[in-house]
């Protein structure tokens, strides 16, 4: 029902921000990040924004060179999560005034 984690990664695969809402060990975190990043970066533009990963879903949105990735459970509404990502981005934008990747 809730977001498990939030990742912001660059086009080259560098993790800019990682916020976890469930306890993962450091090893697990590293492993998850690797797998998720490789899956997301492999997708061309035309494809839909949802991926099945283990028993959960990954929802991502691309803003210029930055990918916003969230991981939710299977019974969550995907489109609304997408909107949450967008909402977050808008808030950042308003708050910091025209934010870009380097700011993060």
């Amino acid at each position, binding site marked *: *029902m809730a977001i498990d984690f939030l990742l912001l990664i660059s086009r080259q695969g560098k993790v800019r921000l990682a916020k976890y809402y469930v306890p993962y060990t450091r090893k697990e975190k590293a492993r998850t990040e690797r797998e998720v990043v490789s899956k997301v970066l492999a997708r*061309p533009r*035309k*494809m*839909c*924004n*949802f*991926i*099945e990963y283990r028993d959960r879903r990954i929802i991502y949105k691309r803003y210029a060179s930055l990918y916003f990735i969230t991981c939710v459970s299977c019974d969550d*509404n*995907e*489109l*609304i999560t*997408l*909107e*949450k990502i*967008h*909402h977050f981005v808008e808030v950042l934008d308003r708050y910091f005034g025209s934010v870009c990747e380097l700011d993060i």
Partner: protein
Amino acid sequence: LHVEVQRLLITSSTTPCVKKKAALCLLRLVRTSPELIAGREFAPHIATLLQHRHLGVLTSTMSLLIGLATQHESEYESLIPYVVHILGMLVLKKACAREYLYYRTPSPWLQIKLLKFLQFYPQAISSSSLEAPEGNTQYVAQLHSIVNKVLTETDVSDSINKSNADHAVLFEAVNLIVIWGHAGPAQLRDGAMRLLGKFISVREPNIRYLGLMTMSRLAQLEGSAESVKKHQATVLVSLKDADISVRRRALDLLFVMCDTDNAERIVDELVSHLMVADAAIREEMVLKIAILAEKYATDLRWYVDTILKLISISGDFVSDSIWHRVAQIVTNHPQGDLQAYAAATLLVAASPRRCHETAVRVAAYILGEFGFLIAERPGMSGEDQFRILHQHWPTVGPATRAILISTYAKLANLYEECRPLVAPVFVGNKNCVDVEIQQRSAEYAAMREAFSPEAVEDLLREMPPFEDRRQSALEKRLREKEIADGAFGATMDRNVWISRNGKDGEEGARQNGHANDNFNSVDRGSGLHAVEEEQDEGAASSYDENDAPPNEEDIDPNTSNAMPQPGSPDVPVGIPKDVIPAMRKAFSNLCTSPSGVLFENQLLQVGLKHEYSGSQGRVSVFFGNLSGAVLTNFRCEVDECEHLRMQAQGTQGLLEEEGCSVAVRTQAKLLLLSEVTAPFDDAPAMRVTFEYQGQRHDYPLRLPIVATCFMEPVTLEPGAFMQRWKSLEGQERECQEVVKAPPTSAPIDEDCMSRIARIVTDGLKFGRCQGCDPTPWTVSGAATFRTGAKDMNGNNINVGCLVRVEANPQAGAYRVTTRTLHPICSRAVKNVAVVSIKLA
């Protein structure tokens, strides 16, 4: 600490900000320890919160409410009207504070949460609600109109974000419709299906994905199959979509909407797609194709073909369970030419030099069984079969070689010309590194000389059909086992294993009393070890359904009638095989004694007390938790039988769907009042299921309520006894059986006889008839079997029963004869008597 938080949440003086945080904090707390909040008391507080103006508070409250409802849905039902009201305000009137408008949509997040909450209560909209019917209909109507509006008015707009938000709400509403199922109005369902049909051909991949996903949920409702099939073509196209996520969804949907008409088409499409599918979903596809092909196969030959295609295309992903299933199905259908067809097709498939290993395995097995059916055809003689199979010998792995060896043995048996071809293979492999191969070669080679020809014939005969295994083994039991008594030395045991397990075992299962392990032990004779395990897994071992339970002659019925599907998850734990002999003994003891333990293992002890008066009986069953943790979802189901009228009462929840929880070292109780209405010779079945540490357990047991429990002793004068005895002479009404005393017991003497006498009087509840026995080695008894059924005059129907036990000290055996007016009665009494004597 949670008390503080609750207080903050509830008092009206706190600011909205604090309230929001308090609600979320409480949600976190509740997630970790669910028993913090007593639902019923808290619900009214939530009601007041839901009337708050501030949307932020509402959103947080809804999060909390959903969290609580996931745990205890029944307690928050009263809040439904409030929820509907808020939803109505947002959707219908769009009345919302300006900050909360998201691209001109009023707080889509809140709308979604409200809809999610409503999904917990599918029954809320059914008109047969108990509380306040008038209030109900009002909000039900409102809910319908809300959902309708969402469905019809959501549009794609310029701003992709607004579009997304609107569609998010739309999909959530469709989910709600799906949950409602048939209780909701049909036009909503149709509208939803139409919309989804549009969505799956939209360009936007997100919408396609969601459309396919929601459609598969909608398709699972019965009655929607027709409307879904209209979109079948589009779905098939989506299967080839560039996006893997969309392809997966399409696969899922196809799986759901498949049924007998379109199965062939869909499966063929899937198979052709399998060739281009990438590795990630191949395994899933293979499994699904196999399941679909099996379920909806109208022509089994098509099924065999499909599986063969699967193997050739992506053999690596075809697990063993799939081809075992094929073998099972082919074996079980002797009618028609399925077996010949399968054998021929497989032979052709195995002919090319390079062919997948699984295909070789299947071919080897099937040819071994049914090769003789096609041996007349040109190019398919026994020799040809051998040649084709053997060409793969160098390239296959040890497991396949083991199967091949068995097949060669069968071939050699069937066709004379194969013997010289096969012998060198055996000889060469006697020293093979792999133990399995070595053993098989050695044994098969020795078998020729060791057994007489007929024995070898029998041993290597084809496998009987799977469900009927029980009977054929039974037949074999009845045969004499002189062949096994031959002096074959060390190889005897091994050969006994082979014969019993693989082919029609004719060695009786009296060997070591290992009847129970008949189907369990390593199957050397064929590669079906895993198959049998699957059978065993599917149905925890259960008693024979047909034979009288106290009869120990029954073989262990480890067979199951329901074949588990390949890859079926979550198989419950059944009764372990080693407990069964003890269980039988306990059961038999309980038939003749008033109380005792019916079943025991480390987790559970089932104790039983029963007492009877005339045709009525009281049975109390106690389920004691012996483990260290709580047993949850504990329930027991007692089967209905036509000859026993039963009334059951038990610990709260024990007999219902959800079961009850049995804490450590406590007992759940069940009281059964039964009245017998007709003679019977089997015992009612009771199924006990529960969950222990996440693992489901499923034990089928039998209640020791047998005919003799309802007997009332009758004293008869010797003359009267003999008169009745003679009058009941006649084949159907008499049952007789000879029981050998166990070899370890003392020779039959006076003590023994008095024990027997006591069995007859106390255990079987017969009245001893003293003077009518010519020798001290006979015991006679008489009783009436009382039933609760009434005859034409309104009197209870009773059946008179007579029993005689004659002992033969020289032979160390007893002969039990029963004569009653009703053949079933005779049989029942005889069975109980026989078992009691054996255990005495």
